[in-house]
Each structure stands twice: as C-alpha cells, then as structure tokens.
C-alpha cells in the first residue's frame, strides 16, 4: 500500500530552512581589519581608505554637520594621494591575484571627489607608486623599487600614464615599458607645460640609476626617449635626484647624487621619421657645479637663464650662466644645501626683487645667507648677507608666498623653532614642544598648525603677526590636516580610534565653542554591509 507523505516533506522543508538559518555562517566582512591608509584631504573632504574592505570613506566637511559617504575602490589599495590642484583623492589599488572563490581583478586607479563621486581607470599591472604633474592633469603609476609587487612575475620598468581629465578609454591610460639599461625607476617628475618643437606639451621624466627616460604625454603613442647620463663602461650609480625645467628654452637641468656635474638636456627639434617617432631629440651637456651639488634653482630672463647651485661640499654657491656657459663662485659664510628663490623686498630696498635664501637642514649650520641676485656675478660675496640664528637648523618649512620660512632646531633654551621673515630678515624664536615635520600650513596659508604626538593640544601660529595660540581638544592628536572650505578655513585634528575620530576646528575662530567632533564614522553603514541571508 502506498503511503502519501507530501505533508511530511513540506514540514521537512520548513525545518531545513530553520536549521540553515540557525547555522548561517558569519559574514566574513565583519572579521576584516579596519586599518586605514593615512587619510588625505580632497577639497573640503577627508578621505580614508580601508584596504581590507576595498573602500574609501569620505567625510565631507562642506556643511557644519559632516556628511559621511562610502565609495568602493579597487582591490588591495596601497596608497591614497590628494590630486594636485583638484578637490579629488586618487587611490591606487593593486587588484586581486585571485584565489579560491576570489576572481582576479586588475590594478586600478580610483578618483574620488568630496561629494563621493568616483571614477576608475584600469591599470593592468599591480603598481605601487604614483606621481602627478604640477597641475594634476596626469598621473603616472609605476613600481617603487622598495616595495614588493606581490606577483610571480612583473616588469619594474612598466608604467601607466593616466590623463586624469579624461575617462577610461582605449588610449587612456597608456601602458608603457620604458627602455632600461638594467635599472628600475627611482621616481618620476613631470615638466610644467613647456614648448618643445613649437608645441606646448608636458613631459614625464622617469628617473633611473644613470639614465632618464622622457615620455611625451601629449603624444603617448610616440616612443619614449632614454638618455644615459654616464658612459656605458662607467660603473657609477649616478642617481638623478632633481630636475629643473626651463620651459621657455625646452631645456631641463638634472642634478644627480654621486656626481659633481649638472646634466643639461636641451630638446632639439627634429623631423620625425615615422608617426610614432618624436619630433625632438635630447642634446646632453654637463656643467661643473662644485663638490656634490645639493640643490639648484633657475632664474633670469629666457634669453639669459642662470642657475644658482649650492654645494655643501665646497661651502659656496655657484652661478652658472647657461648661455655663456660660465660659472661664478660665490663664497658663503654658512654652509648651505637648499636654495629658496623668493620675490620680495629687503631691509635696504623696499622694491620687490628676485632674491635667494640659502640654508642647510643637515644640522651643521646655524646661519642662513640672503643673496641679492642682481649683479651677483660681478659683486659676488658683496651680495651675500649672513644672518645668524644662534642655533643649528635641522628642519625647514618654507612659505615664500607669505615671505616666511619656519626653521626647526634641536630643543634649546632659546626655543626649538624660528620664524624667519624674508623681507625684514629677522628671526623670531618660538618655543615649541613639537617637531616641525608635524606642522601643516592651512589651505590659504594664514596659519601654521602643529600637534605634538600624543598631546591633546593643537597649536597654531598666525603668519601675519606671528602670534601663537593653542586649543585643547578631547583626545590625543595623531595628525592635523587643513582642509579647504569655500567659507573660511578648517583644520581637522585626527585622534587615534580604529572606528574613526576627528575634531573639526574653525581656523578663523579657534575655540572649543566652534569645534566639533565626529566619532565612529568608519563604521557608517556597518549593519548594511552584509549580504542578506
């Protein structure tokens, strides 16, 4: 006899559903780390990236009440940078190699605005470094030699050039493998817009040991140009460290570690032999620049360009006439390894003029040199004025737009900071409990903000009158980030909390009454993250 059992099957199904619900595995997202990359400001927003979650949290500070938004980024994000001259953050992700249950994903670059809008460019290879040009139009992803690529095979000379003004497309980004003489890129610098072969364009200069590679970003289809700085048989690791561009004369000047010479690359116009050939050719020249030149700056009219070079090894400055190819040695009383050009008055001349401040941050010099650049070649040391600070300098934070430079000194009875007024040539000692590397200028450069590690007080100096002040907050400060805001200025103090904790300070009215905290924002939407079961 057949016994019908459909009703039993129905109950069995209900029981099975209940049992499965009871045994549902925990959503693995809740076990992932909440660690973040160091946050950056993107316009009026702060952008935190949580690598384990492949997510950026955007804290928009446009309004008095911050708005928190979350944006997905590519897998395995390794760095986040503020886009130069734009209210946007750029997140470089290495993608996923793929594993059981995890599909491989290519590396990518994600641009995130303060409003939380995102754009993404697929890069292909798992780059781990990013450089941008001066106006933030181009980004170049490359392999930093100090970091592992996390892949079985990779070519460290591969680069990806992204036009950040354009969306992803067949010609954006451009993936290239730069020609190598055995080295790998140490860094990338971009030229300002410079006229080459009669056409304004931007060049990317990839710096490698003993050679540089030029990429024409306006013509990415054209081949790159690689220039050796040494003879093939020369074993020296001449590492290019600084590039200065003469935009009017299609010329660039390179300073290299391990070299007493400056390298001059003049881009000479040629007729291209094919559609992928370049319409310029570099002509290499070398200029003697003392012993181990440490910094250089370009000045003078386009038809009379000169280089000001400091060489701490020879305790002098050199003025090199790039047209006449002559060098004038200017002895210095104080050793210098940095050049700061500024346009401003001097105590003897109220008329603004281009001048230079020479100083050293190596902890050996306690004086700085002001150099009048007019007639420097004939007057030499007569154009140099030495200012004694009384304490050795080990850090510097220049702000030529405000005609000030802040120097850091080893802690002493006369203060650990000095504010140098470039116009008056006076140095005001400031007592500080903090090192200068934690100091930040705010967006409109009206004040300098400092926060001592693990201290609860936020310090600031008004740059128009050098008046210091401080504000007590509710928790120790780990960093301070000024952010731009249409109305007024704001400074954000970061506190240590894995769930996110910031205090937003009104830069124009630095009081507790005008300060607000936001806590737990990295947990925003936490309960909505899991997948419905």
């Amino acid at each position, binding site marked *: 006899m057949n016994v019908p059992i459909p009703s039993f099957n129905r109950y069995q199904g209900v029981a099975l559903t209940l049992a499965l619900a009871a045994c549902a595995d925990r959503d693995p997202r809740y076990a992932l780390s909440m660690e973040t990359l160091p946050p950056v400001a993107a316009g009026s927003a702060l952008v935190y990236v949580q690598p384990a979650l492949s997510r950026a949290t955007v804290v928009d500070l446009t309004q008095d009440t*911050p708005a928190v938004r979350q944006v997905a980024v590519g897998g395995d994000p390794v760095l986040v940078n503020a886009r130069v001259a734009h209210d946007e953050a750029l997140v470089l992700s290495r993608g996923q190699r793929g594993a059981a249950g995890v599909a491989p994903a290519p590396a990518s670059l994600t641009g995130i605005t303060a409003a939380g809008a995102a754009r993404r460019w697929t890069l292909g290879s798992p780059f781990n470094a990013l450089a941008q040009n001066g106006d933030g139009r181009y980004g170049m992803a490359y392999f930093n030699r100090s970091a592992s690529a996390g892949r079985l095979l990779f070519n460290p000379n591969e680069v990806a050039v992204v036009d950040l003004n354009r969306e992803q497309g067949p010609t954006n980004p451009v993936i290239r493998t730069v020609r190598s003489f055995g080295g790998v890129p140490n860094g990338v610098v971009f030229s300002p817009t410079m006229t080459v072969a009669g056409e304004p364009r931007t060049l990317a200069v990839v710096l490698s040991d003993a050679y540089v590679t030029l990429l024409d970003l306006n013509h990415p289809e054209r081949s790159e140009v690689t220039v050796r700085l040494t003879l093939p048989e020369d074993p020296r690791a001449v590492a290019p460290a600084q590039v200065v561009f003469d935009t009017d004369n299609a010329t660039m000047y390179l300073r290299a570690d391990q070299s007493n010479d400056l390298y001059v690359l003049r881009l000479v116009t040629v007729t291209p032999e094919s559609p992928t050939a370049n319409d310029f050719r570099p002509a290499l020249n070398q200029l003697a620049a003392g012993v181990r030149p440490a910094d250089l700056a370009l000045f003078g009219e386009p038809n009379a360009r000169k280089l000001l070079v400091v060489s701490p090894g020879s305790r002098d400055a050199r003025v090199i006439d790039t047209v006449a190819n002559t060098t004038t040695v200017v002895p210095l009383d104080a050793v210098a390894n940095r050049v700061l050009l500024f346009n401003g008055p001097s105590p003897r001349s109220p008329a603004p003029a281009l001048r230079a401040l020479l100083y050293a941050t190596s902890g050996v010099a306690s004086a700085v040199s002001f150099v009048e650049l007019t007639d420097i070649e004939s007057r030499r040391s007569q154009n140099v004025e030495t200012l004694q600070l009384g304490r050795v300098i080990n850090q510097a934070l220049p702000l030529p737009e405000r005609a000030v430079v802040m120097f850091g000194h080893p802690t002493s009875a006369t203060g650990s900071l000095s504010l140098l007024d470039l116009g008056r040539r006076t140095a005001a000692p400031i007592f500080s409990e903090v090192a200068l590397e934690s100091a930040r200028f705010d967006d409109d450069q009206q004040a300098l903000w400092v926060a001592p590690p693990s201290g609860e007080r936020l310090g600031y100096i008004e740059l128009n009158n050098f008046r210091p002040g401080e504000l007590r907050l509710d928790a120790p400060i780990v960093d301070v980030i000024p952010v731009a805001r249409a109305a007024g200025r704001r400074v954000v103090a970061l506190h240590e909390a894995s769930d996110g904790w910031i205090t937003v300070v009104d830069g124009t009215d630095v009081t507790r009454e005008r300060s607000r905290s936001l806590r737990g924002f990295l947990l*925003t939407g936490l309960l909505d993250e899991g997948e419905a079961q």
Partner: protein
Amino acid sequence: MNARVVGLLGALVGTAWAGSASAQHAPVDAPWRVGFEVGGRWHRDSGLDAFGDTRSPPVVGLMGARDLGRIGDRATLALDVSWNAEMFQGRLRDSLQSRLTAHLLSAGVTVRVRTFWWLEPYARVAAGALYSDIKLEPESGTTQSGALTGDEWTFAGTGGVGVMVTTAPFLGRLRLAVAIEGGYQLALSQEMRVRPQALSNDEAQADRLPVADTSLGSLSQSGGYLRGLVGLRF
C-alpha cells in the same frame, strides 16, 4: 535520563489517567500562570554578524498570564505580559569588542484548546516594544579610549503556536506547567546610531566637545523563534 525527569513524566502520565473519562476534559482551575522561558531566535539580518559569531544566541525571559474566560467548552482565552532578552557579543574587525542586547517587552493573547485537562495546544499573538542597546569598545591593550554606545526602540509582534502540559496540583493549588512554542517575530527595522559613551563625571562630560552621531545602518530583528516555558499555574 535524569531520574527527576523520569519522575516528572511519570507523574504527568499518572495524573493524566488518574481520573475518570469525563474528568479528562475538565478545565484546570488555575487562572494565573508565571514562568521562565529559554529559547532562541533565528535572525535573518546579517548585520547582526557585527556583534558575534552567531545570530541565534540564547533568549531568556519571564512571563505572567491570566485566564480571562472560556470560549465554548474547550477553549480558554488568556492575556499575558512577558519580557525576554538576548545578547550578541563578539569581536568586530580585529579591533573592537561589540555587544548588542535586545529586550522585548510584549503583551499577548493566547487561545488554549483543551485536548485533555493536562494537555492544551495553543495559539498566541503578542505585540510590544523591542529595545536594542549596543556598545562598541576598543579592545583592551590598545591606546584608544572610550566606547561607542547607542540604543533604539521599535515595534515588534510575534505569532506562534505551542502546546502546554500541566501537572496535577501540589502544595495546595500549585501546578507545574511546561510549554514549548514556535513562531515568528516580526520587528520593524531600527536605525542604530552611536555616540561616545557618556563620562561618569558630569563635569567632565559637560566639558566635552559636541560630537555628531554616526549611523551604523538599519537592523531588522525579525525571524523565527522557538521557546520553552516552565512555570507555575495557580
């Protein structure tokens, strides 16, 4: 099997067959009931995974009921009030200790149908308030300080069926009642917001900078449930 349990079952069977056939259906004269409940809920919202490895922690509670009257020969209408609570506790994202405690306060109506005087299947509906209280605290050993807390009320209703077994009286009018009930809890979703835990020192709390709340998102605590009740009727 435990000897006490065997003895209890023996007493139940014994009392069930002790009376005459007509006495089998006579109503129990014990309008009041108080009890203790244990059970579990099977939640579907994976947001609860933020608070531990299981979405079905034990539920414990207390209840009290009063028979209101009879419906026909065999059915009895009763009103009850109950409280129960469940606690989710775990580790969140390698850095926080997370905890959610949900309290359900409800009033319900039960219709019991007498099969025998000692055996009453029943259906129950209840409605009330669900209060959820969360705390997210940095793990000990870190330099971070201060927990985040938040709480929220919402409406919840339950509907279920069960069966109750009642013993013969002892110690005068007291009777032991045991029930098992299964059903579904429907709860409106709660938007959970957190803020730093208030300081115990009022002066220090008043000195704090204003802090904006953070929304953790919505949580739904709907799901099936199964509970066992042990109590006394009198």
